[in-house]
């Protein structure tokens, strides 16, 4: 596996928030970070450390105040809303702590939802890919059920399938085990490990559970808006 190519790089990214009293809070301080293709990384840190803000930068959900976010050699931090939305759609797949599935859509429709927002012609049949992913994750029999009718572990598998439907270069998981019991949480991390090893998918998890973070091959620790350690 070649590890030379960068999937995403942060170049001196600073994020400041204007607080209600007029003062400025710096959530991220000139962060430099390079995520290589095929890496399995965990971002850790206590609450308020800036790890969520860092995730928002990587996930293109927010823009840096200063600095650049480089994807495939291109600075995307100045792109307009449309272009950023397309990148979120194609480049990154999100997995959230709260699963964030739409309960009014069936499981299969939830998985297919990102494909309804794509602007490019897909080289594969989305429906076939959705069924393939559901089969791989053992939820194919639930495809016509609604998310609130299945277990938490199954919901998180649906969320992972949804994140993978667009064949993104990066999976970004925010506390993926936070709402699951220990056993189910371990199963989800097993799934990530398998996807990373077998399919070579780049994965970044944000977590505060050390046990979960240790399963990743790279641990990035954030504290007070700075990266304090980066172990491979």
């Amino acid at each position, binding site marked *: 596996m070649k590890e030379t190519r960068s999937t995403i790089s942060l170049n001196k990214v600073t994020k400041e928030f204007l607080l209600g009293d007029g003062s400025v809070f710096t959530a991220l301080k000139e962060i430099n970070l390079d995520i290589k293709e095929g890496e399995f990384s965990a971002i850790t840190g206590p609450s308020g450390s800036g790890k969520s803000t860092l995730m928002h930068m990587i996930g293109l959900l927010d823009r840096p105040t200063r600095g650049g976010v480089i994807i495939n050699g291109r600075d995307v931090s100045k792109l307009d809303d449309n272009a950023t939305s397309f990148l979120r*759609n194609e480049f990154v797949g999100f997995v959230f702590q709260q699963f964030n599935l739409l309960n009014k859509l069936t499981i299969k429709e939830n998985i297919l939802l990102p494909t309804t927002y794509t602007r490019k012609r897909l080289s594969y049949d989305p429906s076939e890919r959705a069924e393939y992913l559901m089969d791989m994750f053992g939820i194919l029999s639930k495809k016509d059920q609604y998310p609130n009718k299945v277990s938490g572990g199954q919901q998180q598998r649906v969320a992972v399938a949804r994140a993978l439907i667009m064949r993104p270069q990066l999976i970004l998981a925010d506390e993926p085990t936070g709402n699951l019991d220990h056993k189910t949480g371990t199963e989800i991390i097993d799934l990530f490990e398998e996807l990373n090893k077998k399919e070579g998918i780049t994965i970044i998890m944000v977590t505060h559970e050390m046990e979960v973070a240790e399963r990743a091959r790279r641990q990035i620790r954030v504290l007070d808006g700075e990266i304090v350690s980066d172990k491979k």
Partner: protein
Amino acid sequence: MKILSGTQQLFKSAFADFRRDKVRTALTSLGIMIGVLSVVLLIALGLGLKNYIEGQFESLGANLLMVLPGSGFTGEGGGGFGGQGIVGGAQFDEKDVRDLSRLSGIKYLTPVVFKSSLVQANGEEKAGYVMGANEDFFGLMSYKILSGDLWGKTEVGNRSKVAVLGYNLADDLFDKPADGLGKTLRVSGIRLKVVGVIKKTGDNEQDRSVVIPYTTTFGSLNPSKTFFSIYLGVESKDEVEAVSSAAEKILLRRYDEDEFAMTELSEILSTVNSIFGIINVVLMAIGSISLIVGGIGIMNIMYATVTERTREVGIRRAIGATKRDILLQFMTESVLLSFLGGAVGLLLAAGIVLLVRIWFPVALNLTAVLVAFGVSSAIGIFFGVFPAKKAADLSPIEAIRYE
């Protein structure tokens, strides 16, 4: 399963949301439904009234030309014998009728004596209208006989005391309208024999008329032997203008310009049309108020929906929906709500119109339908755009964190 197109996806998502809360969906659409219903019904009513009055005029024949004293229909021309006393108004006589009979292009020509009077018969006394005319009057008014016969030229020549009775008056005086045939009426001391009863025309004046030869009025009824009006039936519609000016020329030899007026029925019709045009606009304006209220109802609910679905917006934005996608999603819902409400309102209105038609000639027209649909969709867009904009402008991070 093939991937759904963007529009299909929007509709599917909208209907999925409607299904989730059917009661709210129905109540939200109700405002627009009532609005469209009232607009369409009011327009149908206005059109019905207009058609009804037009029909009344058309039964008189659109080729009718009336010579009236004074300045005509729009002036103070009414009033029967009393009207003949108007200072400066012409008092037409038999010479005028003879002069006008030389005109070419006329099919009917009759002097008209008009008097409202009490009619006695069969021990009853009812109000009616005595009309003195010649035999052309029946053709001009397209009278249809119910029983007996119409009187003719001979009766006019002989000053016969014969009468043709209108349906409603005959109905009031006798057990059955047809029973009037052969009976004797007393009008202002004159005894008249009923030779015919006509079918119902729908025109109140005609249905309460006692039509007698104009020569018969030349006694106590009309000692001056003058006429209230002269009616001309023109052969074709295209000649009305020409005949009117030719007749005017003839009459100008005897009378001043301001002593008489030529009145065409089409002129009256256009006046009636313009009045109803205004009434229709006013009715539509009143109906539109309820449409606007309905639109505000939709806006209200859509604002609530946006807040309720903040998290959904966040999820959709995170997986790649643009602001425009979110805007379209919410707009689709409000336009659909409004449009569906409009469609139901229209169907109800059509049902009511069909039912009311049994008693009154209300009418639906394409304009009313298009206006109703257009306006209800426009309201959906107008009142939907503000909540949809609010949804689209939600920050993805804030939205996804929203509990």
